[in-house]
């Protein structure tokens, strides 16, 4: 057989049958995770057609987008005053009960953002195919799995058949040599990649990340990288499994135990692209040359290193890109040539499926220890899951955040997508560890600068965008 990429091997292993000449296959899906705002329409259509759920045990449901993140979690605080959002949560619960689907509801100790929960509970394992009604499902490629976001009609298709009609994608090898420097994280790496190839740069492709810098990243850094690959339009992103991943997975709920674990690891070790496998495209990056990044615009590819200035749209030759930059600067209230380092902020937000994991909180706390949030800045930490929150409390990180003046809140999507009560006002400028700086994303008129959690902490302390390397303890 000809040499195959890891992506192709996973697709082949899940192909029920081909679907004609267009390159589509009927793809078997191992795992689906549902949320409260993209699943109700799928269930409604399923019920209207009188259909049942093919394999309820393959599906898990989580409340994450609309739930409150008040500092306290109890039956009194986890009440949603808004009638429509409350109905979304109750509809999810009713659908799960009707079909025997496990639900991590608002008071469940396993609740959190769907992508954070799915990795920490061991719901996604190497070689699996996973889908969810949320674009950041690409995160789970860090587990050596093929994972991608789908719409509500495809959720319905998956519930009814455990399959999707799937168009096989092209493959892109993103090869990252060297090692990330002091104070530089996976978030900086992916922001640099998106800046380089563009917000549509990986359209129609699944990325495989390879090279020594990827191997050196922790699993949580790989989750950040795969999570944001969708911001370059990738339909999936995979890192081949290795010992670091096996160590991460070992002992988690839903992960094979005992003899089954040994068998599983032996099988997972074979999951890699064959020598000589051909990718449709290769992009090479040198990790050592990457500096801390921030975005200045309203698309994730409008980013720059923290020591750079806001670019001048007039220098942009492509007319579409020039119009985009002009519109972005008007929305963001920025002038060409303005220094990014020193740009005053009103808010700092640490959280989201991109950067709400324990490593992210540790990175931010390292910067905050013994420091205070600048006067006039509102700073929030929203852990990605209830379990991450508990671990951060056990490690003393919560104390560091509180002493620095951050609000220490309950888990959820919160101010990344602003579908609950957490949002910015018009003109607010936020240093944000989230994934999207779109117009209005964190609230109508809100201005979002994407960066790593450590960079958010540094901005919170200074009250302005700043190079985190100046605030970190000396390099080991």
């Amino acid at each position, binding site marked *: 057989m000809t040499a195959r990429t890891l992506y192709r091997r996973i697709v082949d292993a899940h192909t*029920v049958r081909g679907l004609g000449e*267009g390159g589509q296959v009927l793809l078997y899906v191992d795992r689906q995770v549902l949320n409260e705002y993209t699943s109700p329409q799928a269930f409604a259509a399923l019920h209207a057609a009188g259909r049942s759920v093919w394999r309820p045990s393959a599906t898990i449901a989580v409340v994450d987008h609309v739930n409150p993140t008040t500092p306290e979690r109890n039956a009194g605080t986890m009440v949603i005053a808004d009638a429509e959002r409350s109905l979304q949560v109750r509809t999810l619960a009713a659908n799960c009960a009707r079909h025997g689907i496990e639900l991590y509801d608002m008071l469940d100790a396993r609740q959190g953002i769907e992508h954070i929960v799915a990795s920490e509970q061991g719901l996604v394992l190497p070689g699996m195919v996973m889908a969810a009604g949320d674009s950041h499902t690409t995160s789970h490629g860090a587990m050596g799995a093929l994972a991608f976001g789908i719409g*509500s*009609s495809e959720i319905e298709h998956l519930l009814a058949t455990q399959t999707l009609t799937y168009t096989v994608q092209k493959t892109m090898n993103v090869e990252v040599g060297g090692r990330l420097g002091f104070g530089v994280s996976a978030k900086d790496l992916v922001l640099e990649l998106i800046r380089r190839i563009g917000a549509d740069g990986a359209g129609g492709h699944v990325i495989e990340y390879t090279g020594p810098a990827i191997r050196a990243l922790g699993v949580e850094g790989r989750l950040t990288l795969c999570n944001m690959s969708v911001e370059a339009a990738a339909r999936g992103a995979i890192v081949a499994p290795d010992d670091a991943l096996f160590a991460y997975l070992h002992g988690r709920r839903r992960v*094979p135990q005992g003899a089954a674990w040994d068998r599983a690891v032996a099988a997972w070790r074979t999951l890699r692209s064959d020598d000589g496998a051909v990718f449709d495209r290769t992009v090479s990056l040198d990790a050592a040359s990457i500096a801390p990044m921030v975005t200045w615009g309203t698309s994730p590819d409008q980013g720059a290193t923290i020591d750079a200035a806001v670019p001048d749209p007039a220098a942009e030759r492509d007319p*579409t890109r020039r119009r985009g930059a002009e*519109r972005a600067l008007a929305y963001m209230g920025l002038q060409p040539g303005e220094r990014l380092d020193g740009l005053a902020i009103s808010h700092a937000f640490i959280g989201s499926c991109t950067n709400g994991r324990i490593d992210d909180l540790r990175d931010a706390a390292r910067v905050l220890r013994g420091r205070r949030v600048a006067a006039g800045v509102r700073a929030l930490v929203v852990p990605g899951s209830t379990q991450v929150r508990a671990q951060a409390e056990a490690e003393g990180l919560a104390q560091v955040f509180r002493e620095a003046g951050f609000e220490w809140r309950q888990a959820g999507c919160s101010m990344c997508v602003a*579908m609950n009560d957490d949002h910015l006002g018009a003109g607010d400028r936020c240093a944000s560890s989230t994934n999207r700086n779109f117009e209005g994303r964190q609230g109508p008129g809100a201005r979002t600068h994407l960066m790593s959690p450590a960079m958010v902490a540094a901005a919170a302390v200074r009250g302005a965008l700043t190079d985190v390397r100046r605030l970190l303890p000396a390099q080991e």
Partner: protein
Amino acid sequence: MEPFRTLTGPAAPLPMANLDTDQIMPKQFLRGVDRESGLAGGFLHDLRFDEQGRARPQFVLNRAPWTQARLLVTGPNYGCGSSREHAVWGMLQLGLRCVIGSSFGGIFADNCIRNGVPAICVPAEEAERLLALAADPQRCQMTVDLEAQTITTAGDGCILPFRFDARHRSMLLRGLDAVGLTLEMADDIRRFESGYLQDAATRA
């Protein structure tokens, strides 16, 4: 699902790159448990309406002849971002049944097919030509023929061929229910599953 064969009408230009689904259907319209709640009003809300909810007179969909638009011609990577299918539902409810551009967000394009909407990819230079025609009230009339795979632009009398995936084209032309089609292959799925799920240790 309603079949899509041909469609004729004014095309409205949206020349911005990376117009994301957060803007196509802002979060305040994602509060329903159905496919309808307020979604026609939500479509491109902040571009169509000002802070007081008044129609912005300069925005294309608020001006004749584009108030009657049936098609959209878009900049690159239209529909990137969030998976929310509400972006397509709202567009349909406003009477727009086809989008043409040089590239689309992947989930958005899949959502279009599932709702009987062709999202047609054309080369970037053709997209620029169609954007220019769509921006001209005298020349913005277009006809999409999905069977023949052509876009006829009345404004300059050109016929632009395009390629559309054969399976998706057949589904749109016949208005087929994708779930129903797949359930016809239920035996294939069961056969696959019976072998596949035996090795449960490394599987779901």
